[in-house]
Structures are given as C-alpha cells and as structure tokens.
C-alpha cells in the first residue's frame, strides 16, 4: 500500500513484513495441530508480540506483554465456570422435555440464553481491558478498574432497544456501547473519553436496511408488470427465458454483492465515527479507511484465502492489524513527563470469555 507516502506524518506506522510473519505463523500452525489446538493461545501471543513490536507510535514501538498461559487460563476458566454448568443445564432441560415438562425446559433454556447474552457483553469489555493492560508504550500501559459487570447489563438493554423498533436503532446501540466501553478505559494516568455520534450513521444504515426491500420491491414490480402485459416470461419463448435467467442471475449477484457492500459502507462509517469520537487527554484519534478501502481489503483477503486453498487464513491477523494501524491517525501532543504509570488492576487471566464466544477484536 502507498499510504505512507500519502501520510508521511502519521503517528502510527507499521514496519512488519509478511515474510517475517510467515516464519511465526507456519510453526504456530504446526504446533497448534499437533497439540490438538491447545498451542493456539501461545500462537496468538507470539503473533501479537510480533505485530505490536513492528508498530510505531510517534517515536517508540508498542510492546505486547500478554502471555500464552494467561489466555490458556482464561479459556480453562470459561470451560469450568460457564461451559460445564451450561452443559449440565442442557442435559437437565433435555431430561425435562423427556419427562414431560417442556415449559420448565423452555424457561431454563431462556435463562441460559439470557446469561450468555449478558456474558457476551462482559466478554467484549474485558477483552478490550485485557488488551490495553498488556499493551506498553515507553514502559507505560493502559487498563481499567471496571470489571465490566455493569457493562454487561448495558449491553443487554441497549441491544434490545436497538432491535425493538424493527432494528432501526442498531447504530445507536453500537455507538453508545462503544462509548460506554472506551469511557471506562485509560492509558497511563489519563482516562479515554469517547463521544462518538450515532445520528450521522443513519443514512448509511438506512441504505443497508432498505436494500433488501428495494430488491423485493423491484421483483414485485417486475412480476406485476409482466402479469399486466399479459405474458409470463416463458410466453415470450427463448428470449423470455433468457431475460428471466439474466434477471435471476442479477438478483442473486445483487444479494451476494450489493448487500455485503452496503454493510461494509455502513461499517466503515461506523468505525470512522467511533474512532473519531475518541480522545486521550490531549490526543485525538481518527480512522482514515473509507468504504472503498474496506472493500478492497476484504476482496484481497478473500483472494488470498482462495488462491492459497485456505492456508492464507493464517495471515489474516497480520492483514487485519496492518489495515488497522495503517489507517489509524492521532493528533495533538503528548507530554512525556505527564505520562505516568497506570494504577489500574492487572488481571492474571486473558480473554477467556471472548475467546469462548469467538467474537472479534476492538
């Protein structure tokens, strides 16, 4: 990418190379396979160590100090504290159905679903907290003293409010939760402040929201006009069939291309608004990737994965991080003397929850 020439003064710079990353990723893959997946916590850690150490902020590299063992412990905790009880509940509710108490089984399942929903929110929060607390810059780290239990509740009610009016408030839920999350985080002595606005997102969101209806509408109008003109497509013979076929292909393509495009257009705006609303003391942040950049990024990812018959998948952490860093921007000044060590608590376990629910970064 030629971004470095366009933005020579970006505060964030990435120096990694995929060849170097390959020397980490391939042994990782091998070790992960022969350990039946257990090595993946150490694999993730090695990849992050590399990516962080190849990322400059202003004049010094970032440092990832998380350990594989922490992620492993987090995973084991989730297995014991959540996996096992849930497995038990599932058995019990199956038994209840057998024994003719489906109502009770339904209630139990619903309670399980609710607690999973809650824990997903807590997991998002704690993953961000963990990542900040393990990220050092000039010997200073981030973190939060909030355990995220309150956030789990906000996560539940805000998403419900987002979904209730026919999913129209989803952008509000996303931005509001982003703000909640980041407002609880700090780096060094400074608290982050997040004031992202959600209303500017609505145009893109409505576009994405309405695309399926526009297609449905188009199809209905086409059908009706055909019927009105008194001829179904096949009544026109071969040409009619051809026209119908082409239309069907267009509809399928539209469904698989235009809807994802609309989603990406929305997401790129969301991420720009979200990062743009973020401040740390005297620093302001921005994310410069536009919808086109996201589209090209995803197409390239897909091409890499397909052309390598799936092996390229192991480069995705590298690609994601590079995309993220190369489009991040920070403005303002930092007083190095004022930047003192974070006093936030440091948890000894990693992203167990998040890992278990398999949800993405930041």
């Amino acid at each position, binding site marked *: 990418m030629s971004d470095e020439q366009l933005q020579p003064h970006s505060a964030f710079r990435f*120096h990694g190379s995929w060849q170097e990353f390959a020397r980490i990723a391939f*042994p990782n893959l*091998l*070790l992960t396979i*022969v*350990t*039946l*997946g*257990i*090595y*993946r916590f*150490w694999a993730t*850690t*090695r990849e992050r*160590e590399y990516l*962080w*150490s*190849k990322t400059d902020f202003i004049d*010094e*590299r970032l*440092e*990832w*100090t998380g350990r*594989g063992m922490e992620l492993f412990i987090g*995973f084991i905790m989730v*297995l014991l504290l959540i996996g096992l009880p849930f497995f038990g509940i599932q058995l019990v509710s*199956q*038994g209840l*159905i*057998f*024994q*003719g*108490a*489906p*109502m009770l089984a*339904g209630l139990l399942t619903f309670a399980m679903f609710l607690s999973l929903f809650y824990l997903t929110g807590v997991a998002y929060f704690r993953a961000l907290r963990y990542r900040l607390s393990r990220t*050092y*810059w*000039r*010997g*200073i*780290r981030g973190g939060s003293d909030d355990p995220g239990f309150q956030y789990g509740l906000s996560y539940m009610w805000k998403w419900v409010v987002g979904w209730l009016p026919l999913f129209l408030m989803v952008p509000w839920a996303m931005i509001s939760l982003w703000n909640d999350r980041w407002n609880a985080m700090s780096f*060094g002595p400074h608290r982050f402040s997040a004031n992202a606005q959600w209303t500017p997102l609505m145009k893109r969101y409505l576009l994405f929201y309405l695309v399926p209806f526009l297609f449905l509408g188009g199809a209905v109008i086409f059908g009706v006009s055909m019927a009105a003109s008194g001829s179904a497509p096949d009544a026109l013979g071969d040409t009619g069939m051809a026209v119908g076929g082409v239309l069907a292909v267009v509809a399928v393509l539209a469904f698989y291309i235009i809807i994802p495009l609309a989603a990406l257009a929305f997401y790129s705006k969301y991420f720009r608004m979200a990062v743009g609303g973020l401040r740390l003391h005297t620093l302001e942040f921005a994310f410069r990737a536009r919808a086109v950049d996201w589209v090209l990024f995803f197409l390239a990812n897909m091409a890499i994965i397909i052309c390598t018959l799936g092996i390229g998948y192991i480069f995705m952490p590298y690609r994601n991080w590079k995309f993220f860093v190369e489009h991040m921007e920070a403005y303002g000044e*930092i007083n*190095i*003397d004022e*930047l*003192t*060590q*974070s006093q936030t608590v*440091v948890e000894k376990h990693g992203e167990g929850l998040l890992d278990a629910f*398999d949800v993405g970064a930041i």
Partner: protein
Amino acid sequence: MSAFFDVAHYDGQKAVKRKVEVQVVGSQFYLLENERRTGPFAFSDVAYVTKQGEADVYGLVGHDGWRLILSGPVPSDLKGLLPAPRNYGGWVDRLGLGKAVIAFALTSAAAIAVVLFSPQWLAPLIPDSVDDRLGDALVGDFGGRFCHTPAGDAALQKLVASLDDAPQDLRVEVAKIDMLNAVALPGGNVILFDGLLKQARSPDEVAGVLAHEIGHVREKHVMQALLRQMGLAVVLGGVDGNSGAMVNNMLAMSYSRNAEAEADAYAMKALGSANISPVGTASFFDRLSQLDGSAGVVKDNAGITGYLSSHPLSASRKDAFEKSIVKGKNYKPALTPSEWAELKTMCTQDRKAKSGFGFDFN
C-alpha cells in the same frame, strides 16, 4: 570488579526514555544516569519481555513497565547474566521445535487413543446403580407417553423374554410417538416408538428391532458412547469451533457404526436362539432402504453415504440379516396373531397416554 554497558531504559513510572549505563557487580547491577545511580537490582529478577526489531527487551519482576532495551549484539559478559530470549514458549524452546512437535504429536495421539478405546473397558466398570439412576433421570415416565394395556403388556413381555435371558433388568416400553424409531437408553431402558409398531408388518420385524436395541444394552454401548463423547469433548476442547466438532462427529460416528454392527450381530444371534425368522427384519430394512435412498448402492458398503451416516446402510443390513437365515430351520412367529394385534393397537387403546413431543399440556 565491575563492567559498564550502555542501554536504553524506562523506569516504568514515567514515559521518559533514559540512556543509562549498566554497572555489573557480581550477580547484581546498578543503573547510572549522569551522576544518579539506582539499584542494586538482582539479575535473577530480570525477565525476558519481548523482541523489538533487533533489540531484546527485559523487565524486572515486581516493577510494572520497568525496561532495559539492549539493541545490537549484547556483550557476552552481560548475555551470560541475562535470561534467555523466549521464542515459542517454555517447553518448545527447551526441546527445540522439531522434538517438541514430535513429542506433542505423540502425546495427542495417545490422548485420542485412550479416549477412543478406554470406554470399551471403562463402561462395564460403571456400577449398575449409576447406570440405573441416569436412566431414571433421563427417562422417568417419559412424560406419560408410555402406552399400557394388560394384553399389550403381556405380548411385549413375551417378546422380550423370548429374546433375552434376564428380562428383569430390562425396561422395554412403547411410547405414543409417531416416529419410525427405537432407542436404547441408560439403565437398560429400551423405547419402541408407536410409529414403528404401526409400520411393522409382522411381529418378527419388531422382534428384530427389539433384539438390536437389547444388543446395545447388553454390549454397554450407551455408557460407552456417553464416555467417549465426554472424553472427545475434553480432548478436542482446545480445537476451536467447527473443525473440532467435525473431527469429534467423525470419530464418534465411526464408533457408533461399529456399535450398530455389533448390535445387529447380537440381534441375529438372539433371533436364532428364540427361533424367530430374520426374514421379517430383512424385509423391514429393505423398506427402510427405500426411504433412506441407499437401495441404489446396495453392494457398495464403503460408499460415501455409508461412511457419513451413523447407521450402516439399511440395504447392507438387509443383506446381513438375509444371510443369517438358516435354510430348513423350523422358525415360529414371534407372537400369535392375537398377541400381535394387541401390541400393535396398544397405543390406540390406551387413551390415557399422552402423544407426540410438543407442548401439549392437558
């Protein structure tokens, strides 16, 4: 005696980068900055943190963010005192990548082998009381779906007694559920679904299916499968999501196919000693094979469908049962016509039994 080395240093309190000299005194060292001297620090408290480009970064136990950054070649005097860099993580670094991969692969293979093979001799060790309690918890009165009439019960009892030498530890019931199925559950529970009785054209067919399920009970397949599933879930717990579930299912299925074959063999023997003809069972599987579409690949035992379905192909089972017919043997029907009629209509006669699986509360 002391030696001096120039290094970069963060004290972990402030983000100010310092150029310091390391003064080594025995197993301790001081940091000198202009006229200021801090320390002493013990080399045994120094921990390797990460690699940043060409530089090795060290921390100090108990001092958050304290860093020594040694770039370029480290003088050998100092290198001997500092901890070794970490690459893959503890064990792998100690063994070397090649040896570690072999060791992990062997361990994993052993773990999988234990999980796959141990249930066969573990299952008989599980006390019957545990098995019974599990069966009671799981089955209970099946939500009142079991059908009973005096004559029907007697017919069923006769059938069970003719197929098994110790019918008192079996609990065979007919459930008012319209499915073409039968199941063996823990605690010697065997449930025939009413749909199966309705579809069966002779008591011999039911006898074959019942003998098959009793085979599962007598060979302890249910407990084996439970143990195996639990073991696989633990061993493959480290593998994430889909691939783990897929491997798990493939392994479990290959074993359940084995179990089905064993149960079939048991059924043929039981039918033989009860003097019941296997013809009925063969024709039952023949009709099933029309349903599951395996009729076209009758002879192709290793066909893809055969591998992926947990039951051996109905068509090949039909062949097996046909082969077990002893020519010239004087088979007698499993039940008299009136007994058969009572059994077949038991669920229709018993109006108190609940039907179906749904949320039907009365």
